[in-house]
């Protein structure tokens, strides 16, 4: 005379699989996200309403800002292989040698602003110390125009490795005077690079 018992269904679902997937994705995003390295030359970019994003590869960023009251230019290039190839070409041109370790370090670092002769000193430093090193900018006057060569060899390296034309982005400080920006633009135009990106910040809607 057994009573018919309703079997109780459990209300909980098995979350193991979901949890697995969630953590897999989480690990993926954490690993792909690159930690923001403190900028070597902090600049306050002007704002605009244009919302085009910068490309992530095949890009070189020229940062124009003030350091010790002088307007300086820092150079940055995306992609480890391209960086290393560029360094190799520059080293040949300027008769400077870099050890494989230094080249490796250069491939991983961010923007820099020193003459190539003192680049190895910067490469020896820890990433955090580079910002405090008081980098003086890449020489760009007519006697010693290293910036021009960096631009040229970066383009060469990018075509060799990625078979694509390198894009240039100018990240200028809002307070920088126009001639400083024009100097860099002219340098790019001398090499027939006529199209570039100006890095800007986001402006409020009601502008």
């Amino acid at each position, binding site marked *: 005379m057994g009573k018919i018992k309703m079997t109780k269904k459990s209300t909980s679902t098995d979350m193991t699989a979901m949890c697995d997937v969630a953590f897999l*994705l989480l690990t993926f995003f954490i690993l792909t996200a690159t930690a923001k390295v403190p900028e070597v030359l902090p600049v306050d970019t002007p704002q*605009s309403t244009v919302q*085009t994003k910068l490309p992530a590869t095949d890009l070189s960023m020229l940062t124009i800002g003030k350091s010790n009251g002088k307007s300086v230019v820092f150079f940055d290039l995306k992609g480890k292989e391209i960086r290393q190839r560029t360094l190799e070409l520059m080293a040949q041109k300027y008769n400077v040698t870099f050890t494989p370790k230094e080249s490796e370090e250069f491939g991983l670092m961010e923007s820099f602003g020193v003459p190539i002769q003192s680049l190895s000193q910067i490469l020896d430093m820890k990433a955090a110390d580079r910002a405090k090193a008081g980098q003086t900018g890449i020489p760009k006057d007519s006697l010693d125009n290293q910036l021009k060569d960096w631009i040229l060899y970066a383009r060469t390296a990018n075509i060799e490795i990625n078979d694509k034309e390198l894009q240039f982005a100018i990240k200028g400080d809002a307070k920088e005077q*126009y001639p400083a920006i024009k100097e860099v633009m002219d340098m790019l135009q001398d090499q027939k690079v006529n*199209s*570039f990106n100006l890095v800007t910040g986001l402006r409020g809607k009601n502008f």
Partner: protein
Amino acid sequence: MAELNTDGGGGKKGGKVRSKKQNSKVDLTAMVDLAFLLITFFMLTTTLSKPQSMDLTLPDKEDKPENKKDVKVDENRTMTVLLGENGKLVRYVGILETPVAGGTPKDFAYGKEGIRKELITRGKLVKDYSTAKGKPKDGMIVIIKPSKKSTYRNLVDILDEMAIVGVGTYAIVNEFTPGEQKLLEGKKE
């Protein structure tokens, strides 16, 4: 969300003493919640941290003077914007010496109430003018002349205005005529 114990508490049959079965399941809800929260955070921050940029294409620079061609444009369609020190902005329409009606050199401020209004009204006038001439596609041409004292912010601001107003044809010109120089140096009105 508590786990329901479903493996009934049947310990009374047969009188045997059985050790109670412990539920081996762990409640994962909170863990999943946290994982998804972090996923969302990382997904959003990776895409948002890409800086924005503004495309700028300049015309080819021609070094050889014999290859230089001066393009003649209708003065009724051009507006020249001079960028000066401390956010000074002067605009005139047509040729400086003989400006088009209503286009005498005048100071403007940056932004919504200043130069943008002027760009919009002038753009309409030019459009009417072109339509009357039978070429409705010819819009306004803006010549931007940043002086040596102007800042990068000024340049980006005015380029931004071009994008907002939708001026398709604009050029950055670096040469200043003495008349224009005087305009910028002149006292603020």
